[in-house]
């Protein structure tokens, strides 16, 4: 019973924790521009994150080594250093975008000066991270982020053409660069590296042992898959509300408007609360991921399960990330634009993150009987090929489409 309860908790936390500002922005824009035609890109991204999250969770559980430890061990110091710098930069951009997103959502709820709300958001997040234990943080943001399920209800309520929705789930291709850009964006938003850094380090924070490998698999498959349903719901709602009037969403407020069209003020408030906790949770994940990667690369003591004085440099690192993100967002940069850059640039860094994971997870001398089976290897290499393709296409597509604007 305890295992089932633990699994349920993990799944619920994953549903709320999967969607971040990148998902909110790219999925809404994808639905508004192409109605259901990009739905298939969601399962492509979700299967990818399931495959690699399961592998990183398994490697962390079996070896006690989280992803970044593995990257350095397998790829050497120089490649590890390049990956570290790239991931820290992307983490910081994403964190700034999430913090800015949280402030915007608070502003939509309370109409207070956004600069004040950015500062308050960062203070609140720092206090939560400092005082609440790791499991509590996962549950707080995961459960409250589930308010985003209002989009699933809205998708049903708006009575879409289910036949067309089904057709949208079948991969199709268009000769438009904008379509390709959103394929990269939707797939990339699901595969952002900070999720696996956090997931694998979280496995160690939660003290998973080999006995928990089933829990790891179930969490990765069910949690991310159900999170993917939220992404599909966002696309369907955007397709129903914004496609016909040719609205080009550029604000989180537009995403919230979709829920309001379905359920009025109650839908709006639920959507905003869900967004607040989803982007808040993602901000915590980003700050931790940055601190995890830095500490794991440098060989510092790390972990939320340790008291701050037992892992002082780790604690200082996540605090520094929040402060740097605060400085970036307070410059007035648009968090939605920042998100788009962060997602597209993280796509470029994906191969450096996922190749070492794949190599170590299939290594029988290291993983012994827990090494990848045929299915995990096949999916792993298939997804590595997809990741390479989207990584190569990401920057040219961003330039050609003017960042998805044309």
């Amino acid at each position: 019973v305890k295992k089932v309860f633990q699994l349920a908790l993990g799944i619920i936390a994953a549903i709320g924790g999967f969607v971040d500002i990148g998902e909110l922005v790219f999925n809404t824009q994808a639905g508004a521009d192409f109605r259901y035609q990009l739905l298939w890109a969601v399962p492509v991204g979700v299967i990818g994150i399931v495959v690699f999250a399961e592998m990183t969770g398994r490697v962390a559980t079996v070896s006690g080594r989280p992803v970044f430890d593995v990257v350095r061990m397998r790829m050497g110091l120089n490649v590890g250093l390049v990956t570290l710098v790239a991931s820290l930069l992307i983490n910081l951009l994403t964190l700034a975008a999430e913090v800015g997103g949280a402030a915007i959502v608070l502003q939509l709820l309370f109409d207070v000066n956004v600069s004040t709300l950015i500062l308050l958001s960062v203070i609140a997040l720092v206090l939560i991270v400092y005082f609440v234990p790791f499991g509590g943080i996962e549950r707080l943001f995961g459960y409250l982020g589930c308010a985003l399920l209002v989009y699933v209800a809205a998708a049903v309520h708006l009575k879409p053409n289910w036949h067309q929705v089904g057709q949208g789930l079948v991969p199709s291709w268009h000769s438009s660069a904008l379509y390709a850009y959103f394929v990269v964006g939707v797939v990339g938003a699901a595969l952002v590296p900070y999720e696996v850094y956090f997931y694998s380090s979280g496995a160690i924070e939660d003290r998973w042992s080999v006995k928990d490998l089933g829990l790891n698999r179930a969490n990765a498959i069910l949690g991310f898959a159900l999170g993917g349903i939220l992404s599909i719901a966002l696309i369907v709602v955007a397709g129903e509300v914004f496609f016909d009037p040719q609205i080009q969403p550029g604000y989180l407020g537009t995403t919230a408007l979709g829920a309001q069209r379905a359920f009025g003020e109650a839908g709006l408030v639920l959507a905003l609360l869900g967004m607040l906790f989803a982007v808040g949770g993602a901000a915590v994940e980003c700050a931790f991921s940055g601190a995890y990667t830095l500490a794991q690369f440098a060989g510092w003591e790390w972990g939320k399960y340790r008291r701050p004085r037992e892992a002082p440099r780790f604690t200082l690192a996540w605090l520094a990330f929040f402060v740097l993100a605060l400085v970036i967002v307070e410059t007035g940069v648009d968090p939605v634009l920042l998100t788009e850059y962060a997602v597209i640039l993280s796509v470029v860094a994906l191969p450096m993150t996922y190749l070492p994971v794949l190599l170590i997870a299939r290594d029988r001398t290291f993983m012994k009987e827990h090494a990848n089976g045929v299915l995990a290897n096949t999916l792993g290499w298939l997804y590595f090929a997809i990741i390479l393709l989207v990584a190569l296409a990401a920057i040219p597509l961003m330039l050609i489409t003017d960042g998805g604007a044309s």
Partner: protein
Amino acid sequence: LIAAMVIAITLTACGRASSTGVQAGIKQLASISAEGALMADDVARRRSKVTFVRVHGAELSAQAEHEAEKLNDDPVSPKLEQPIHTAIELSADISGAIDDLRVSPQDREQARESEQKLRHWADEASELAEGL
């Protein structure tokens, strides 16, 4: 990665001077107007929240003004001058209607009027963009 980011931000931040760029700007105005109309419809049916109307309305209104500024500032060929002039006038109307909504989000009658106007201007902007 840093170089790619700098190039990307620099190039995407460049102004538009082609007819495609002008068309994109006018389509953006149509989008803002259509979104304003949806918001006004919800206000008219008491299905929204005052803070949301004020904050999101301010974003949309500011964006309409920004699009007008871009259309005004970008150098274009003489044949595009008339549609740009019309688009700039439309943007002022759109921005004004959204501002009215923001000022008194409890006024359902005014919201209904704004909704109809914004819907009409969205169509007008779309037609203008398609005609280029």
